[in-house]
């Protein structure tokens, strides 16, 4: 095992080769905002919130998929990055319909947390008020596309951890949408085992348990990590 030395926000650190910049930062107490990243599933580098500046690289690099290298000088929270992150969060709020006051995830929502973190009290970009559907055809769960931020965490968790691959992405651009089965109502998809992992994975109130009332959503995020570790290391208790 080889060790790399680098600096994050001016603090020198030594870290195992193959670690991502995001892990390196977290292990050293530096917080980098993320949305599409979820411990236990693969990374796609899609939300761009974790972008950092790395000396010698003209482009910003996503911390979640960039591996550490010897001598890296990483800055995670410059003014430029702060501005970009705020704009990304604004873009997300403007893109969907996020009416927090009537959301099951109110108070337990990663999008809300991000808004607070980047200091977004309003969006400078106009809200688009798209017309989106709600699918409650599943016995136990539902999806409200108005609150979906298209992070594809549900897609990956269902494919990689549950092995059911109920979710996928359809269309493109502004029409992009997560779909169940072959774009069928969720309830009609036999492959769904009703395991609820997608509910746990969803960062917002998009996928929810039926019967939950406003601000009631609780998720067990550690469950995914637990399952992954259990499979890998055969530790079945937590």
């Amino acid at each position, binding site marked *: 095992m080889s060790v790399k030395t680098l600096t994050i926000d001016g603090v020198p650190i030594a870290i195992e080769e193959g670690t991502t910049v995001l892990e390196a930062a977290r292990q050293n107490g530096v917080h980098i905002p993320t949305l599409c990243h979820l411990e236990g599933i693969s990374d796609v580098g899609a939300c*761009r919130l974790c972008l950092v500046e790395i000396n010698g690289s003209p482009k910003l690099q996503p911390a979640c998929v960039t591996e550490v290298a010897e001598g890296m000088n990483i800055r995670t929270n410059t003014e430029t990055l702060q501005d970009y992150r705020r704009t*990304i969060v604004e873009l*997300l709020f403007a*893109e969907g319909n996020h009416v927090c006051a009537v959301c099951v995830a109110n108070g337990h929502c990663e999008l809300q947390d991000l808004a607070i973190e980047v200091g977004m009290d309003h969006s400078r970009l106009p809200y688009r008020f798209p017309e989106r559907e709600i699918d409650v055809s599943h016995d136990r769960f539902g999806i409200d596309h108005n609150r979906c*931020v298209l992070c594809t965490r549900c897609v990956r968790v269902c494919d990689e951890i549950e092995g059911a691959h109920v979710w996928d992405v359809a269309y*493109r*651009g*502004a029409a992009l949408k997560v779909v169940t089965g072959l774009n069928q109502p969720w309830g009609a998809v036999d492959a769904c085992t009703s395991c609820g992992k997608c509910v746990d994975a969803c960062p917002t109130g998009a996928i929810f348990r039926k019967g939950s009332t406003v601000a009631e959503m609780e998720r067990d995020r550690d469950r995914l990590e637990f399952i992954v570790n259990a499979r890998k290391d055969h530790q079945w208790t937590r």
Partner: protein
Amino acid sequence: MDLNELLEIAEKERQRAASVRIRCCTAAGCASSGAEEIKDRLEQSIKDAGLDNTVEVCSVGCMKFCGRGPLVEIDIPGVLYQQVSGDQVEAIVDALKQNKAAESGATPLDREHPFFTLQQPIVLENSGKINPERIEEYIAVGGYQNLYHVIHDMSPDEVVDEVTRSGLRGRGGGGYPTGLKWATVAKMPEGQKYVICNADEGDPGAFMDRSVLESDPHRIIEGMAIAAYAIGANHGYIYVRAEYPLAIKRLETAIKQAKRLGLMGSQIFDSPFDFKIDIRVGAGAFVCGEETALMQSIEGGRGNPRPRPPYPAQSGLWHSPTLINNVETFANIPAIVREGADWFASIGTEKSKGTKVFALTGKIRNTGLIEVPMGIALREIVEKMGGGVPRGEVKAVQTGGPSGGCIPAHLFDTPVEYDSLIQLGTMMGSGGMIVMDTETSMVDVAQFYMEFCRGESCGKCIPCRAGTVQMYQMLTKILRGEATLIDLEQLERVCGMVKATSLCGLGQTAPNPVLSTLRYFREEYLELLKDSPKAQGVASR
């Protein structure tokens, strides 16, 4: 197949060819204006005149002046007719009988026009001359001899070295040094490797790659085979969009013919070198031209880009090292092998070697395909070759498509090369060149490209997916006269953010047309603002 057999085919073909040939362009441009029918009527007419023993009507690829199709060329007396219609066929055959140019109807094109004389064909050297559906004609002009030479007389390293020394840079847009890319894949450990030809060509207004595929498909196959030999690959893919049915058909025919002659498959030219090519037809999404998305699509997945590194050279198709080059890049290879790196490097400029094919379109007199040496002044292209605009004055030229920008007329003395165009805030791109006149609104142009990117964004990353929509809306607001200076500031801010944070080249370059028009035509934006002095003047009038 050995060299003698190859040369025999070439010789036989030369003897077979009739003394007089009538060449009809049947590439997509001319086909869309009825070229097939003209060709059929010419054949019938020749037969009726009893000339079919001495005169041959051949179907050939693009003759470059696509705006004036259908084009018909006669060897003797050496005339190229434009906009040939069915009722001119008789006159052309008559002229042929009498060995002089036709007087009734069909108009000959002036071959001494700068449109033709300023061209320097390398990539298009066979285009419009040979029948793309007959491998014998390609062999007769020296085809596949370069592949033979490479396999038998050169080591893979020598081939890579030759390409490196030629200075060839990728013609797909970015201009990455081709030799360096080849060397990187060649240096990867031995094992499964792939070669991909990127024939997705999604830029609006571009048709260069399509023309090459339709006009000289064997050239691409030979170029890819040489690349495969150089990097140690045995399998190639051509990724071409379904909107190009003729190109697909001609490629399929070419692959079949090459296989039949043993120029593709195992032990090519009795050597240990194996190589085969498969065609993959894409549904026609712009983003699938991006290399990582393209590879996803070949693998059967959704054409989404992924973060790089790893680059395709390290981990590409099915995680194997993969070389991906553009159609035109591959088309240069046989000529480089034949004439040598020094010859190629002597053409063009210091940092941009060789020629570049452009699809010259827009508000211009002469639309068509041009192949010009790098470094030629934009003015030469627009004014001399293109003949200027039919009405008013030339205002700007757009290059680089949705990733590029506009060059205003006062900068037309700029040489056309990778770096000079980047300095002007645009790029070479794959070769679309759209001419605009003084009637064109540059804000309209910016909105057009943003509409394109908004629709073509794969949607994976937020800045591009949602940012392009916002930018499009702001541009619309400006065009409607409903925007203020604050909206313009907002637009520029979002442009910068989308450029800096998007995952792939589509989003990273989508703001370019806006930024470039803002750079050179800012006053057009300002005039449209609600609170601009000018707009207020209009309102109070």
